[in-house]
């Protein structure tokens, strides 16, 4: 009788030291950087060191670059924070793109239609509330169907994105300036009504401060609030949630309202604090990138600062490489993809271990 067992088998790890897990992740990032360097080299025939220098320049060239970097991180982080409570509840909200966009649309609408009807600070407040409400509704709809009939939330929220995108496209045609151009253009450029004001001369500072505050709030909410506790219990085991008397449906709906509202906030920041206009590409895929940011950070809001930094840094860096070396902008997407593949792949080595099958004695 021949042994026919495979030489290796895979087992779930019971636990892994914190530092070991991070070591694996860092090694993965290093690997990813080597591979992306290699890819860059093949495409540009430039010395990889030079490429990395250029990438660094893309984020830290001067103060303005650093502010732009921080702004980029802030917006991505905001969306990532928004999707996190839902993910912790194992509710796959991949509709952040749409939730943020619809929030941005409401903000833009208010700017356009309520200009002159009220002072700017009041308008900003109205925009903020409107955006968050719109995002919340966009998140609420799939949540209600999930809670009541178990409708697949991944596919539902995904579809909701494109509904939002088309609605926004519709309005960009309706309100196009000049008519027929298909672009709304900067809203209230002269009066700057509904624009978030510059703070200490920095136009993005308010965005950054708001998102920092949201980071702390979400961290506290998830870790120290009763709601946060309930949603993690629901995410871990619905049976346990029932056992201790949590109303699972209520928690799903409540959490998605929060998630959607925060996406709406991100949309508000994009329109009122950044672009001062809207089109169907305002959110620019951040709704999807945020999912990766949140996942890579293991749902920890403070780690998300790092993971969004990583992603924004790569995107800006690759953008810089593209301009300096005559490649096109999409180069950054390739690099981002490679890095994410490595990081999500390395989780396997944290969660599982490969054991050599011990040879048992052969029975005779």
């Amino acid at each position, binding site marked *: 009788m021949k042994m026919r067992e495979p030489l290796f*088998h*895979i*087992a*779930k790890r019971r636990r892994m030291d914190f530092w070991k897990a991070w070591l694996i992740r860092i090694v993965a990032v290093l690997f990813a950087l080597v591979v992306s360097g290699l890819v860059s080299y093949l495409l540009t025939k430039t010395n990889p060191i030079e490429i990395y220098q250029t990438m660094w320049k893309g984020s830290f060239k001067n103060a303005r670059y650093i502010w732009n970097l921080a702004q980029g991180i802030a917006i991505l982080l905001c969306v990532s924070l928004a999707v996190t409570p839902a993910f912790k509840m194992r509710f*796959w909200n*991949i509709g952040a793109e749409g939730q943020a966009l619809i929030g941005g649309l409401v903000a833009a609408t208010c700017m356009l239609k309520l200009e002159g009807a009220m002072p700017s600070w009041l308008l900003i407040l109205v925009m903020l509330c409107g955006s968050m409400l719109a995002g919340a509704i966009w998140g609420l709809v799939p949540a209600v*169907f999930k809670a009541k*009939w*178990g*409708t*697949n939330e*991944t*596919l*539902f929220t*995904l*579809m*909701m*994105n*494109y*509904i939002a*995108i*088309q*609605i926004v*496209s*519709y*309005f960009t*045609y*309706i309100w196009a300036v000049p008519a*027929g151009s*298909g672009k709304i253009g900067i809203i209230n450029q002269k009066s700057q009504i509904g624009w978030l004001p510059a703070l200490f001369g920095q136009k993005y500072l308010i965005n950054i401060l708001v998102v920092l505050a949201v980071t702390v709030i979400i961290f506290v909410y998830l870790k120290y609030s009763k709601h946060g506790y309930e949603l993690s219990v629901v995410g871990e085991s619905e049976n346990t949630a029932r056992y201790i008397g949590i109303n699972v449906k209520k928690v799903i709906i409540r959490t998605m309202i929060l998630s959607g509202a925060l996406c709406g906030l991100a949309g508000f920041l994009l329109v009122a604090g950044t672009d001062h206009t809207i089109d169907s590409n305002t959110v620019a*895929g951040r709704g*999807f*990138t945020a*999912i*990766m940011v949140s*996942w890579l950070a293991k749902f920890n809001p403070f780690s998300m600062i790092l993971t969004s930094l990583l992603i924004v840094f790569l995107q800006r860096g690759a953008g810089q490489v593209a301009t300096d070396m*005559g*490649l*096109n*902008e*999409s*180069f*950054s*997407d*390739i690099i*981002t*993809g*490679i890095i*994410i*593949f490595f990081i*999500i*792949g390395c*989780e*396997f080595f944290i*969660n*599982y271990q490969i054991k050599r099958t011990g040879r048992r004695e052969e029975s005779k």
Partner: protein
Amino acid sequence: MFAAFLQRAIMQGIPLLYGSTGEIITEKSGNLNLGIPGIMYVGGISGVIGAFFYEHFSPAMNPFLAVLIPFLCSLVGSLLMGLIYSFLTVTLRANQNVTGLALTTFGVGIGNFFGGSLTRLVQSEVPSVSLPKTSAFFKTSLPFAKNLGVIGDIFFSHGFMVYLAILIALVAAYILKRTRVGLHLRAVGESPATADADGINVSRYKYLATCIGSMIAGLGGLYYVVDYVGVWSNDGFGDRGWLAIALVIFAVWRPNSAVLGSLLFGGLYIVHNYITGFGVAAQELFKMTPYVVTILVLIITSIREKRESQPPQSLGLSYFREER
């Protein structure tokens, strides 16, 4: 005019049909591949690259090779994408949603990057790469189509890839429903533990379904570029990849229904051009209808709780055989 509309609707629907047939096969194995939009970009650009070099470096083009080269390049490109996804989700058991979305970012990036590079290479006035000769070969239709009048225009005036798409969808439907391989594949997607206990190699089925599905989806990208428009322009493919995923739900995971569904979706996508009295803006709302319809289907199937129209039961979950 209606004939023209129908003809265009078919052509709009074909990329979606390729994408959704590929995604159905993939999802039947329990893998929710949200990388399909990226894969379709890669399928498109790989074909374009192949065609580009053949067109530019071969003085006399052999019609057979002119079709075969882009076709094979496209298959290889999307196969590699499928392998990345399978390796990460099946072997390394990474989260399917995150992997899929990263794959889409990656794939769209690849498409636009190489598309942009080619554009720069030809130094054309418009930011696009046109492949007139290759596209002409792909568009070659049946010789008798012109003699059949309206019917010929609607149904027989297309290049071979239109018929191939329908053929693949029907064959896929047949395999899924009537063959042993199909039965095993569905079992893997429904209950991998049961399939495993019955001696079915779960990983192998997941790999094969995902890779074959990717290759089919990639052809959708190829068709769009070399046949439908005949020009590569960056982001030109748009959100058709997501529409293909919507079509999967609309067709309740049946490739044969996807054939008709693709016609409907294709029609909805362009119907605004044929209805007078609406502005440009309204066309954007028309483009929304496929998604709304899909959500309705999703809601109705979940409320009706009919077991046959639910997503495969283990969709989105990695399989790991627990050992004691």
